[in-house]
């Protein structure tokens, strides 16, 4: 391999990365005025409280997971960043301070400082026309997008709802970009709105008028709803006594209190925070705070729930950080103990650890390191040390990724792939592993470079997808998928087929690059090795794809009584098999040689993308379980990259069917220099 070509390529890659980094460093949005929370959340408390168990969307999860998925859904980022500009005295120039909140810190602010949280720049508006339509002032499309706080957006909520309803009525094909953004914005507003309203009853205190009413609560002049729950029986007797005369002045402001209570007891949205005290077998559904209030008012008060709600409310209404942290810790301990008694504590603690430890992120960075060392191994005079270093880094990264996926399996209790998100991690890992084995067999350093590239790229995609999708990646499965046998047999086999298909396409792209960029002669041993490698990986992909596809049919036959239904996802899998079987037979019968094989393998890579994602985005069939426009963009980007290699390779094969022998190939660096 010519070092100078690799050096030039490397220089270009570095420039590109620098340009990307520069574009990411935009100024954070500004938040004017003083903040209610004057000191940061203590780091150890944030870590502890992140592990608070709660029940949401059908499973018990830690607070940190709820915070992260909600933040991804409404904000589209992993953190909330802004520059706070305090109010300054006349003549002074205020010094802005940069804040960067983790999802857990952000959700704690939403719970405890709702007035501050509603001023956070949260809702991303990519289209200036949306701002105009909603009647907001703006200074043109300066930064590509703007962030609006909840407090501003909710003022236009009715208008937004009308626009969203109008957009909803249009058929998908006729919706404009503004329509799509309006729909998304309205959904995001609803999610945040529910979150904002969730603790409305706990976030205030009620004034008590009238001696008789105060006497029920030991003479107190103000009342917290948790206190009311603790005195539920006495209060019920008092209300019974008042009967229909509850508006009589002798009962103080009982009428206001009852109105407040009826509101507090009927708001049922949001996660369930109170674990049932009966065993899991008897009661699997947790209670929300409004449900507990409702039960207390109906005479089924649960003192433990009242105590938990009391600690939570003390935390929400505390005067200073120390008191707040103390109360919330007490609430956390009570809930964690109750959850542990139900056998629901372990996976929550593990999940909280899982997201903190972030092993797949470390795997990605280790892959990047392995990639850089592998590039160095290609560029520098051949050094065995660099080869071993890159190999070791990539194997370590694969190990980290396996550990990450293994923890996910323990948490969900299912085999590795249950959702679209899981396929990224799995395919990245298996693709890298396949290429590492290929490198082990044919030591040409190309697979050594491609393996960590493949691993890092797919983990990166997984992280993009996680945020863009904004959903819990461990959501419980619907009944038809709840078969660990089939989930463990069909799904991984099929995805190994996809992964190997991706790996084969990468090797074929390398073959095309070697030929098109004149890195080496198509008859050289490097090109021949790559061809052998693409062939071997294709065989592996074919074997797993065929078995995986038929296993899918056998599963379908057990679930629905039909082996094959020509459903888009089934067709996608079949397409991979057909393309690869045809390719192997075409090679066998001499219809294609190395060049045709490489082009065909790249095209098969396109089919893998079609089968893996595009079929889910068609919106039909049993496997239509994911949709987002970002994903569709990703699919088209992949088609375009593969298409580019295909066209370049095809053109080169047409123009130079028989390149000159090795020694007559012009020096690669001379070509690059344009001589």
């Amino acid at each position, binding site marked *: 391999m010519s070092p100078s070509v690799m050096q030039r390529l490397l220089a270009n890659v570095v420039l590109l990365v620098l340009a990307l980094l520069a574009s990411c460093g935009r100024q954070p949005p500004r938040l004017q005025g003083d903040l209610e929370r004057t000191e940061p959340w203590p780091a150890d408390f944030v870590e502890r409280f992140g592990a608070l168990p709660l029940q949401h969307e059908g*499973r018990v999860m830690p607070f940190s997971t709820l915070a992260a998925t909600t933040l991804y859904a409404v904000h589209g980022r992993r953190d909330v960043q802004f520059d706070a500009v305090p109010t300054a005295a006349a003549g002074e120039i205020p010094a802005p301070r940069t804040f960067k909140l983790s999802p857990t810190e952000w959700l704690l602010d939403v719970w405890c400082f709702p007035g501050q949280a509603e001023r956070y720049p949260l809702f991303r508006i990519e289209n200036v026309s949306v701002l105009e339509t909603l009647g907001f002032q703006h200074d043109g499309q300066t930064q590509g997008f703007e962030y609006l706080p909840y407090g501003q957006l909710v003022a236009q909520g009715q208008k937004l709802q009308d626009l969203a309803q109008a957009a909803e009525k249009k058929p998908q094909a006729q919706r404009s970009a503004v329509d799509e953004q309006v729909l998304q914005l309205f959904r995001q507003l609803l999610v945040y709105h529910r979150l904002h309203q969730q603790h409305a009853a706990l976030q205030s205190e009620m004034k008590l008028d009238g001696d008789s009413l105060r006497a029920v609560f030991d003479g107190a002049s103000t009342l917290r709803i948790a206190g009311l729950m603790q005195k539920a029986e006495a209060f019920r007797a008092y209300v019974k006594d008042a009967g229909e005369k509850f508006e009589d002045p002798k009962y103080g402001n009982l009428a206001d209190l009852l109105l407040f209570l009826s509101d507090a007891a009927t708001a049922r949205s949001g996660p369930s925070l109170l674990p049932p005290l009966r065993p899991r077998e008897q009661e699997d559904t947790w209670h929300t705070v409004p449900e507990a209030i409702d039960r207390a008012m109906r005479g089924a008060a649960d003192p433990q729930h009242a105590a938990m709600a009391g600690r939570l409310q003390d935390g929400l209404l505390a005067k200073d950080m120390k008191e707040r942290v103390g109360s919330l810790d007490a609430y956390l301990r009570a809930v964690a103990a109750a959850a542990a008694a139900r056998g629901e504590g372990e996976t929550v603690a593990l999940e909280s650890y899982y997201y903190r430890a972030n092993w797949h992120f470390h795997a990605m960075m280790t892959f990047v390191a392995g990639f850089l060392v592998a590039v160095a191994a290609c560029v520098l005079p051949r050094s065995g040390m660099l080869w071993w270093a890159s190999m070791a880094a990539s194997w370590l990264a694969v190990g980290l990724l396996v550990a990450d996926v293994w923890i996910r399996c323990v948490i969900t209790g299912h085999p590795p792939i249950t959702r679209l998100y899981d396929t990224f991690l799995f395919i990245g890992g298996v693709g890298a592993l396949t290429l590492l084995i290929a490198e082990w067999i044919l030591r040409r350093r190309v697979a050594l470079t491609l393996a960590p590239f493949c691993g890092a790229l797919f983990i990166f995609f997984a992280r993009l997808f996680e945020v863009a999708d904004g959903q819990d990646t461990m959501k419980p499965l619907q009944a038809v998928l*709840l078969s660990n046998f089939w989930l463990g047999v069909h799904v991984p086999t099929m995805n190994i087929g996809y992964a190997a298909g991706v790996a084969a396409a990468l090797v074929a792209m390398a073959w095309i690059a070697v030929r098109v960029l004149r890195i080496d002669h198509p008859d050289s041993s490097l090109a021949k090795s790559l061809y052998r490698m693409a062939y071997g990986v294709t065989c592996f992909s074919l074997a797993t794809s065929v078995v995986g596809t038929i296993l899918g049919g056998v599963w379908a036959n057990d679930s629905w009584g039909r082996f094959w239904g*020509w459903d888009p996802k089934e067709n996608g899998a079949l397409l991979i098999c057909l393309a690869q079987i045809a390719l192997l037979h075409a090679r066998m019968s001499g219809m294609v040689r190395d060049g045709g094989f490489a082009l065909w393998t790249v095209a098969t890579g396109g089919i893998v993308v079609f089968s893996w994602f595009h079929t889910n985005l068609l919106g039909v069939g049993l496997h239509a379980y994911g949709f987002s426009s970002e994903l569709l963009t990703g699919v088209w980007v992949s088609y375009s990259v593969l298409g580019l290699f295909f066209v370049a390779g095809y053109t080169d094969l047409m123009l130079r069917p028989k390149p000159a022998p090795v020694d007559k190939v012009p020096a690669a660096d001379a070509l690059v220099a344009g001589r």
Partner: protein
Amino acid sequence: MTAVAQSPAARVVAFLGSMKLSVWLLLLLAALTWLGTLAQVERSTYDVQREYFESWFVVAELPLSFWGKALVERADGTPWPLRIPLPGAYPVMALFCVNLIVGGLLRMKWSWRNSGILVTHLGIVLLLVAGAVKLHASYAGMLAVYENPAAEGQRLAGRQYESSTFTSFHDHELALLVDRGDAIEERVVPERALWAARGDGAVTLRAEGLPFTVEVRHFVDHASVVPKGPMVQTRMPVVDGAFVRAEKWPVGVQPKSEAEIPACYVTVRSDAGDRFEAILSGDPRVPKDRSRYPFAFTVRGQRYGLDLRHVVHDLPFAVRLDKFQKLDHPGTMSPRDFRSFVTVVDGAGSQEAQIFMNNPLRRDGYVVYQTNWGPQPAGGPPWYSVFEVSWNPSDIWPAIACIVIWIGLFLHFGKKLLGFLDSSARASLNQ
């Protein structure tokens, strides 16, 4: 290569078994699969299946779009399609099967070297044959039963708690019912026999030993029976103030053949010269009690009925629903499990079984699957459970084929990999 003159027969065999033919057939099948997948965006899977995959010929449509945008837009905003005439997947797969048997099994050298390939090819042939058997010999339908109440007296009239028949999803039949007092005797004609009565055609049916003929006219696959008001114009005959109107699926609505209701006109002519006319519809229900009312007539004092209905298949056993159970993921409406506790009754006795997702009941060649439940969406007793019943002689052949193919591929690629690892080819590439 030697230039030996081949007989025409040998040349045909060589062509049928050639590997180049396999490649082209595989590519053709891949093109059909791809186009058939894209076609499902606009049409139902069932229709696409019949048009692309079970047909002899298809004009496939490729919607011309790039990056999710139509290259040329039609009036409704959908991309303009390129129309490509292709053979249907059925003949392609049939020819492929011949190609595989001739080239991949018969003409291939039966040696240890080729053992993996031969086993794999054998598995694929088994898979294709299983598909053909399923297509031609299997049938399926549904069976819906209510949860059986604890006491006999709590059963409601008109509700089925036990059933030994199931009804087809798509296919219809014309049933002649003979009222024998304590039993109803049935004679059936499949829908296919009535297709000649579409448009201006007519089909005359005569059953042995019965004193009348039935003439069927104007058979319409997707129709509704509507009253003929003074402002309504129609070329169809009007019987009892109503006529058959052909229905079309509105633009933008996915057609569902299982939701199509056929209708036709019948004229009964008795040997004595009596004549009865009626419209038969696939859904002859009286709106209030939701019961079916076949067209009834009397000839020589014997009561007869005619009913155009979904094909009814008999089972050699009866299924009774003892209990239905639905569990949700906590705090949500999404089901975690729904299962039916049933008793299967046949001449030999009765047996309890559970049917749930991924766990069908296999018995006497029939497979009974849990497919649906009700009442939806709220649920709650009295529950009913809907099963899909299928009769498929090749039910487990694909599973066997899968194991055979796995062994074949493992053998073949395993041998090749080991051979390569050992070979000088690897050594020469790894210089």
